[in-house]
């Protein structure tokens, strides 16, 4: 009896630990596009582990081996990695603010993230665009590249370790687009109605 009393709490701890370790730690990239005016909605839920395995296999256009060729950055003396490394150690604050008649642009570093905020005042729908990139992801984009590439595969791996974050948010009068990362397998969905 004494052995059972001793072993039972240990068994509970062991089982709980096993359940916690076995719990899903899958991360998902969610994309939601809503157009309320036309009653249209698109939802995409992609497991990041899936994207990580598929992206390197895609050879299409500028995307090869998990990297995207983005032009002549090195020819124009732009070293993205050095710039991002410098920004990472820079103190938080606004780096760039541009205000024009048709748009406002703000680039800042806040809470260890690169924030880009764009207000497009010139368009009919007056779009607001917010892009938030965790620094580790931004650095991963420039890792293991030859200067004219961005490393999408590495960025996806870095996203798996990032917390829940909204990466892109676009709002306009016509539609809203949101792209975010979390551990939920679905970002709510309507059930199929069989008529």
């Amino acid at each position: 009896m004494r052995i059972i009393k001793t072993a039972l709490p240990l068994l509970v701890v062991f089982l709980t630990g096993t359940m916690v370790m076995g719990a899903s730690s899958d991360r998902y990239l969610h994309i939601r596009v809503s157009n309320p005016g036309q009653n249209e909605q698109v939802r995409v839920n992609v497991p990041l582990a899936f994207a990580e395995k598929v992206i390197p296999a895609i050879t299409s256009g500028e995307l090869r081996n998990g990297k995207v060729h983005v032009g002549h950055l090195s020819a124009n003396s732009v070293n993205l990695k050095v710039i991002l490394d410098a920004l990472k150690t820079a103190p938080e604050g606004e780096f760039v603010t541009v205000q024009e008649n048709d748009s406002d642009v703000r680039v800042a570093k806040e809470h260890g993230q690169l924030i880009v905020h764009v207000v497009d005042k010139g368009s009919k729908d007056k779009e607001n665009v917010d892009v938030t990139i965790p620094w580790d992801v931004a650095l991963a984009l420039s890792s293991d590249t030859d200067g004219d590439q961005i490393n999408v595969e590495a960025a996806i791996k870095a996203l798996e370790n990032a917390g829940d974050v909204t990466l892109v948010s676009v709002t306009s009068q016509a539609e809203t687009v949101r792209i975010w990362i979390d551990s939920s397998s679905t970002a709510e969905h309507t059930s199929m109605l069989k008529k």
Partner: protein
Amino acid sequence: MFLLAKVGIGIMGTVVAGGAMLCSEGFMHVKVHEKQADGTNFSIVLPAALVPMTLKFVPNRKLADASAKLRPYMPVVDAAIPALEDCPDGVLVEVTDPGEHVLIAKRGGSIVVDVNDGNDVVHVAVPLRAAHSAIREIAAANDTEAF
């Protein structure tokens, strides 16, 4: 008498083994419901292993065109389908508009597509492993057909 019993057991064993092999890759389910009054309704459940098996009997010249189109994408298919098999079940894509609702999900080792539009309701469920085998079978269709 004992000989007959042995033969019977042998036959039964073969049938059971064959059935198990057929069912080893799960089942394909295709269901179509046409909404109009005299519309067609059917539901088919087939062992998924039949598909790659059946493709072996299709003349390669019939598959040559599909094979040529598939082959460039085989690295992606070979990466995507096993990765999808490892993923937890869930909705992958859902599109809703006034005339149509499309749902693509992974459930129990199968890729499931549900389409509900003004005219029809269609449900297709294909086990991923069988889909992979079938796609590989098509892609491998004789590329020396021209010779």
